[in-house]
């Protein structure tokens, strides 16, 4: 199924645009779906938490919707040569994607972008996820647990149905949730939970909507009693190329405009222009 999957090729060889076949779909978090598809082996093996893939979300007979959609990698399985993404049906592209059955063919570009960076001396990692922001942090949690680090994973959703079932996270992870309607965990925003963990954490990793980032930043900056942990955020921008060619996905940083597809999607909170 993989178009250019010669195993002798460099991980960043000509194989970053490939054809994947859906091998599994699994409903999660209400109306979202985990979509697993085949990928060239070296890509599945080299992919790291924070990276994303860009998918064409249309049949070959159609030119609409035109642009690829980026999705964070949720899990990789190098042995089975598979990648998994978490898709929330939101607009035209994602609605199409969640309807694709096992066996459907996907046109994939990636993995793309930079990764979360865990400092070698970090022991305690706090992850703050909103909605499908859960995806890249789940992969990061898996990587960190494998290295023996302590992970607390905070997830927020509208209601209990919108949460990831605990079974999806490694058992070593402390998993704490918040829902707007209070139907599970703390009632309120996920960022309301942050103050309790921010002193404990050596590093904070976040993925979610823009308002969540703003609240998170307030919470972290409000912590005046200990060294503030560094915060890495995976930001979302509309993308076209995904490789730094179109300059459409810029993020304003203290050192100027940066491409979120190559120099991001992960940025240090302190680097971003707020």
């Amino acid at each position, binding site marked *: 199924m993989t178009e250019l999957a010669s195993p002798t090729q460099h991980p960043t060889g000509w194989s970053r645009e490939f054809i994947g076949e859906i091998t599994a779909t699994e409903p999660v978090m209400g109306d979202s779906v985990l979509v697993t598809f085949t990928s060239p082996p070296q890509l599945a093996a080299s992919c790291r938490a924070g990276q994303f893939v860009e998918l064409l979300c249309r049949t070959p007979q159609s*030119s609409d919707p035109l642009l690829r959609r980026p999705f964070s990698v949720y899990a990789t399985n190098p042995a089975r040569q598979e990648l998994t993404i978490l898709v929330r049906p939101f607009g035209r592209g994602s609605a199409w994607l969640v309807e694709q059955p096992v066996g459907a063919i996907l046109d994939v570009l990636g993995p793309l972008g930079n990764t979360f960076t865990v400092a070698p001396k970090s022991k305690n990692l706090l992850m703050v996820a909103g909605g499908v922001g859960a995806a890249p942090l789940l992969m990061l949690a898996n990587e960190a647990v494998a290295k023996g680090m302590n992970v607390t994973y905070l997830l927020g959703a509208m209601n209990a149905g919108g949460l990831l079932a605990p079974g999806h996270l490694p058992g070593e992870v402390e998993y704490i949730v918040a829902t707007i309607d209070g139907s599970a965990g703390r009632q309120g925003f996920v960022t309301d939970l942050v103050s309790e963990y921010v002193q404990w954490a050596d590093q904070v990793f976040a993925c979610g909507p823009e308002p969540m980032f703003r609240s998170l930043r307030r919470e972290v900056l409000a912590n005046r009693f200990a060294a503030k942990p560094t915060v890495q955020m995976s930001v979302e921008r509309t993308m076209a190329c995904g490789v730094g060619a179109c300059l459409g996905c810029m993020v304003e940083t203290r050192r100027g405009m940066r491409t979120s597809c190559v120099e991001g999607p992960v940025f240090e909170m302190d680097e971003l222009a707020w």
Partner: protein
Amino acid sequence: MVTEEQQSGEQWVPDFTVDLAPDNPRELVLRNPVIPASGCFGYGIEYSGIVDVQRLGAFVSKGITPAPRSGNPMPRITETPSGMLNAIGLQNPGIRGFIRKYPPIWESWRVPAIVNISAEAVEDYATMARMLDDVPGVAALEVNISCPNISAGGYCFGWDPVMSSEVTRAVREATTLPVIVKLSPGAVDVIEIAQAVEDAGADAVSLINTLVGMSIDTRARKPVLANNTGGLSGPAVKPVAVRMVYQVAQAVRIPVIGMGGISGLADALEFFMAGASAIQVGTAVFSEPGMLIRLIDDLGEWLRANRIASLSDIVGVANPRFHSTTVRHSEIVAEMVGQ
């Protein structure tokens, strides 16, 4: 049409070679007619690992301006039906930074690099052309005239034959490099502009640049793009582009480079048959980067399957008045009475 030599092998190799500046001693010979368009292929290095740039006919760089530009505020892009709007705002390191950074990389490449230049005053175009004239690694210039002319109150160069001609002449006089002038689809009469830039010394014309469009975010109740308007590109604009290429190919004798919504072989053939000697691919690079190389292969297959010896044999076949240059404007308008 097929020579003995070509026929001798089991499969002949169709002749793809095209010179886009036949009247210029420095010439612009491409091994094949497939060129990624300006703004859609960065500086030729971004797609490494995805597209084998050395196999391309040529590539065009992002538009370069006299001074560095940080571009427009975000959002800069949005999707539209079978198309997209962009308002990048010509983010680029400026001509000096550009010359330091990219041509040295290209110097060892076998694929010709075409530099797209944009400015808001005639002298600035000329200055950039002069600076690029003998930079190793630069094969040709593409002059983007879809820019506002500051001294004409912001009126777009490319909408006016006199202003288009002035820019072209200034660039022509400042460099011996092949000069391609890139036409704007906003002109009321693209033929008039094409003839003006041909007369002013352009080696070739390329078209079309983007149409001006807007999308409104109905939730936020304001335009999606921070710049309000943006350039429309992609398959949506293809019929407009094919029509303009067809018209321009009737009216000039210099090579025409066609673009606008090309996403594969069938689209490319439309442009060749309308009269384009080469084609550029813009937006489709974003959706299907692998298509660039596939297009070169598919074109070869198609020529072989149709027993056509040379691509030039199909250039303009759908255009009975191709290169006739005697067409009157009124005839073309008369044809435009549609619905």
